[in-house]
């Protein structure tokens, strides 16, 4: 049995999907908001269910909505679960009227039913069911009420058949049926077998994806309908759908007279003319302070010490260092001791401790701060605050050729560029979307956090937090400057639009957030765990052998040194006039995954005793970090960019832009540092 979950944005699709499938998710989606379709299996059954991006209508507007429409029209489905937000029934049922025209059965999951009473809404369910001719199950995806009932109804197939409820006045209905009979005009999908009625309505709308009427008789009839109603086909269909819904709503729903809602009260503060932006900055600062400075500072040195061992352990709370005497305990040294005792060769020991363990620890040591960041972002997202941020920042973003919705990709990009780039699909305007895609990877993603942490904690001990902040300010400035330039370069067709629902505030659900954060973190560990460890081992091999594959003890004789030397010229200026092979090796490593930069530094340091980086002054370290933060993103991001821009040329241009920008800024800082 194959089911699709369809509904408006924020109607609770993902919550319902999680409630129905439990942990039986088959294909993990990208870490991030629901962007692509995600498949799962309903608990204790063989019914597959697909969570699709939210849509308001089956006429796609953004590329994200196109995914949903194509899936519904082209896939052979047994049932559509239409999730309807009971608190905004009128708008939600608009999609339902379209689904009723498909040759697929549907069942309405009337969600947010827990809020209905609180909001003083009274819905006559039985009557609504009768009017629409659809089985309706009231549920709360958040509290779990009604989920079991919905599940048994679905699995036992106890729901009404879709009889294509007639919702139009008789003259329009007659026309639609005539087009349906003249089926040769209608083409919905590859095999053209399904959804006759839907196609016929599309023809009345004059939808560009459908054949236009060639039959002279029908053409005349359409024109006379349009004249009668004084609207073109497209307007006519939309109006009639809403007319029908209003009629149904009047018969079945009663509202308490409007009082000031909680959302309105909260918005008086968060969307206040004067407080909105300071509050936003404060919230963002808190998010980054908690996840990066506090949690990051607390845990990363702990984890790293656990893996590698350390004589002292220094933990920074803000800027206060706390030192513990620990002695060299740690997984790496313990393993090395044991391997030596059983007589393993020295390069094998080095491969394991300096390659695998050092690489792993570099990645794992910032998992705690990543989790914290994901939790914060998830809270901002699910409470509805994120929508408000794009609402009030749209003006600023619009000025520089982006959309208010660009902010979400940027914020998500602070976790990982890949879901960040994917979430640009919600941006309607193509040129705003492309500009956003090109700029997302300038936001330091969590994989770049170790670079920031390393540089700011090692070289700027006391002012670590301030320097970490400086990187973010730099990233914002670069994004604004480049957006301004890109606006001139990217051709635009029509003026862009920003149309977005302002959802009411919702209390965050712990279960939802836990699952969301777990999915993202696991996806991250999987990627980092495989890619990073693999390449850490490679660096370690390159460091442990010379070109004749003989083990070397001194790094200066290794293959890695020569490879790094070949690129030395490129880094010469930003290192303040130092020719250094290790710096280039680390940056090349960053191409694979940004976590690599720091883990390579650690691998090389472990092998070379730290002297290779001894020339780093705070400023050249800062320049070097700047280059690695803003230059080419990792391979995964490049691939995602290519997929979303749908052009190799544009992707290469973006990469070139990134290298140039990063190189100039870094070289400037490096040279300036050398002159001081």
């Amino acid at each position, binding site marked *: 049995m194959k089911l699709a979950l369809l509904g408006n944005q924020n109607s609770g699709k993902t919550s319902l999907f999680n409630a129905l499938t439990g942990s039986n998710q088959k294909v993990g989606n990208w870490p991030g908001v629901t962007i692509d379709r995600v498949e799962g299996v309903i608990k204790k059954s063989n019914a597959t269910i697909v969570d699709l991006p939210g849509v308001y209508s089956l006429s796609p507007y953004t590329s994200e909505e196109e995914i949903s429409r194509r899936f519904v029209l082209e896939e052979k489905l047994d049932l559509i679960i239409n999730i309807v937000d009971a608190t905004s029934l009128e708008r939600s049922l608009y999609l339902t009227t379209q689904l009723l025209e498909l040759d697929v059965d549907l069942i309405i999951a009337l969600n947010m039913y827990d809020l209905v009473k609180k909001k003083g809404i009274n819905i006559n369910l039985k009557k609504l069911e009768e009017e629409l001719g659809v089985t309706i199950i009231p549920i709360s995806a958040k509290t779990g009420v009604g989920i079991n009932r919905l599940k048994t109804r679905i699995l036992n197939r106890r729901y009404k058949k879709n009889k294509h409820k007639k919702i139009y006045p008789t003259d329009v209905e007659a026309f639609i049926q005539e087009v349906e009979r003249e089926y040769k005009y209608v083409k919905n999908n590859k095999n053209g077998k399904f959804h006759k009625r839907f196609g016929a309505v599309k023809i009345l709308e004059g939808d560009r994806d459908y054949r236009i009427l060639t039959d002279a008789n029908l053409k005349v009839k359409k024109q006379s309908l349009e004249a009668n109603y004084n609207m073109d086909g497209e307007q006519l269909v939309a*109006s009639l759908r809403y007319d029908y819904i209003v009629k149904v709503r009047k018969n079945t729903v009663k509202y308490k007279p409007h009082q000031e809602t909680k959302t309105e009260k909260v918005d008086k503060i968060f969307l206040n003319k004067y407080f909105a932006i300071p509050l936003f900055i404060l919230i963002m600062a808190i998010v980054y302070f908690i996840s990066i400075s506090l949690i990051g500072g607390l845990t990363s040195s702990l984890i790293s010490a656990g893996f590698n061992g350390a004589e002292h352990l220094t933990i920074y709370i803000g800027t206060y260092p706390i030192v513990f005497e620990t002695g060299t305990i740690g997984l790496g040294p313990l393993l090395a001791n044991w391997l030596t005792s059983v007589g393993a060769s020295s390069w094998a020991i080095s491969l394991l401790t300096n390659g695998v363990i050092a690489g792993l620890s570099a990645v794992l040591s910032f998992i705690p701060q990543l989790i914290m960041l994901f939790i914060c972002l998830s809270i901002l997202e699910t409470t509805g605050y994120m929508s408000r941020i794009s609402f009030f920042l749209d003006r600023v973003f619009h000025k520089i050729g982006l959309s208010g919705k660009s902010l979400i990709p940027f914020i998500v990009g602070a976790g990982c560029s890949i879901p960040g780039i994917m979430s640009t699909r919600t941006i309607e305007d193509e040129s705003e979307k492309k500009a956003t895609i090109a700029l997302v990877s300038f936001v330091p993603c969590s994989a770049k956090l170790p670079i920031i942490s390393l540089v700011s904690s090692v070289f700027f001990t006391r002012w670590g937090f301030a320097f970490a902040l400086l990187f973010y300010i730099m990233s914002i400035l670069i994004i604004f400057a480049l957006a301004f330039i890109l606006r001139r370069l990217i051709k635009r067709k029509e003026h862009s639009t920003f149309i977005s629902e302002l959802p009411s505030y919702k209390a965050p659900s712990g279960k939802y957030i836990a699952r969301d954060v777990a999915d993202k973190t696991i996806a991250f560990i999987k990627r980092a765990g495989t890619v990073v460890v693999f390449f850490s081992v490679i660096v370690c091999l390159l460091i442990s052998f010379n070109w004749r594959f003989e083990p070397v003890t001194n790094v200066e004789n290794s293959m890695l040194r020569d490879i790094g030397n070949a690129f030395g010229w490129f880094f010469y200026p930003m290192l303040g006039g130092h020719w250094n092979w290790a710096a280039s090796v680390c940056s090349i490593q960053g191409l694979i995954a940004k976590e690599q930069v720091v883990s390579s530094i650690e691998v090389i340091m472990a092998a070379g005793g730290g002297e290779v980086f001894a020339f780093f002054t705070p400023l050249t370290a800062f320049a070097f970090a700047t280059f690695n933060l803003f230059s080419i993103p990792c391979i995964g991001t490049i691939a995602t960019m290519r997929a979303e821009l749908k052009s190799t040329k544009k992707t290469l241009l973006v990469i070139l832009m990134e290298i140039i920008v990063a190189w100039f800024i870094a070289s400037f800082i490096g040279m300036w540092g050398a002159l001081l």
Partner: protein
Amino acid sequence: MKKQKRVFLHSGEEGHLSDLRRGQKCVVLDFHNDNAALRRRLLDMGITKGVVIEIKKFAPLGDPVDIRLRGYELCIRKVDMEGIDVRVL
């Protein structure tokens, strides 16, 4: 660019949705924009002839605008509101 002084509409007058003040209500008469995709989206979001729209609030920087219709709230830029003809209630 010189800032044009905004002329607000009064009850009973006809004009564009963008010329309303916070708290005012109006009824939609017609569209006159030529962006087909935008028009489609507005229709889908329930902005059809005869629907009543209330201006809820302006974003802190003045644009976009939060409007209320059909029991929910929608954010929309002022430029896009210019293409919607209304009569103030």
